[in-house]
């Protein structure tokens, strides 16, 4: 597994734990009403699990197993792949913490923009690698 995929898989596992932890708190809060303000963690729960966990793991595994280019860099620009990793994780974290921050809607919007940039950067490197066996990728 390439180092960037390994980093992204580990980041995805951390997001999974954050998402499951918040989920467990929210479900318990439903049962025993710990504090009404805990419901504000719902967007963080959703973002950690959908983007931080599932989407990030899918992208990490895709970068690992998609067909490689014939010439170096075999998996496409590592700079762009690294940018995708940083922007996606920063985006999820910003959306997650936005609930408790002043100017929360602005921070959430910046987080969403970062997520979009991260995903777009990933698409830039993955697009050419999505090739059939018959088609030689250069």
């Amino acid at each position: 597994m390439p180092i960037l995929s390994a980093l992204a898989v580990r980041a995805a596992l951390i997001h999974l734990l954050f998402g499951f932890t918040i989920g467990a708190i929210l479900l318990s809060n439903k049962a025993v009403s710990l504090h009404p303000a805990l419901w504000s963690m719902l967007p963080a729960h959703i973002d950690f699990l959908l983007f931080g966990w599932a989407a990030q793991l899918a992208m990490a595994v895709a970068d690992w197993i998609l067909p490689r280019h014939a010439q170096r860099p075999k998996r496409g620009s590592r700079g762009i792949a690294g940018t995708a990793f940083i922007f996606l994780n920063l985006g999820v974290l910003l959306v997650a913490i936005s609930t408790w921050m002043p100017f929360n809607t602005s921070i959430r919007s910046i987080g969403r923009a970062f997520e979009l940039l991260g995903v777009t950067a990933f698409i830039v490197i993955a697009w050419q690698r999505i090739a059939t066996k018959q088609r030689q990728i250069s």
Partner: protein
Amino acid sequence: VPRLTQWYLRSALIYLVLSLTIGLVLAANSMLGISPSLASLQPVFFHLFVVGWLTQLIFGVAYWMFPKYSRETPYRSVNLSRATFWLLNTGLLLRALSEPLFQPGSTPFLGYLLILSAGMQWIAGLFFAINTWGRVKTR
């Protein structure tokens, strides 16, 4: 495919059908107004899809395809992975059964079931992360 991956993938497929069935019931309810109480199935619909189908599919495929931990224990701890499977599925089923019945002021037993379900799923996530972490290896 390892036996445990078979369990994960077959369970994931069952949850996919279950969640889409509940989705159909919810859509029919909003169209025909069958019963207002059916709306309480909404969180169950989401979680059967995201946890039961999507996450469980990932768990099963990762267990099978991630780099082997060692020659002697390729899947690292099989017991931890089995515990993950049972905790995740029991927790999710407990939630699916108790959450629609739970209302503020209802019997505390349903609340305890929800807390138990939350704990079981959380431990399943923790066990999966622990077992998988060591298998994420660079060449």
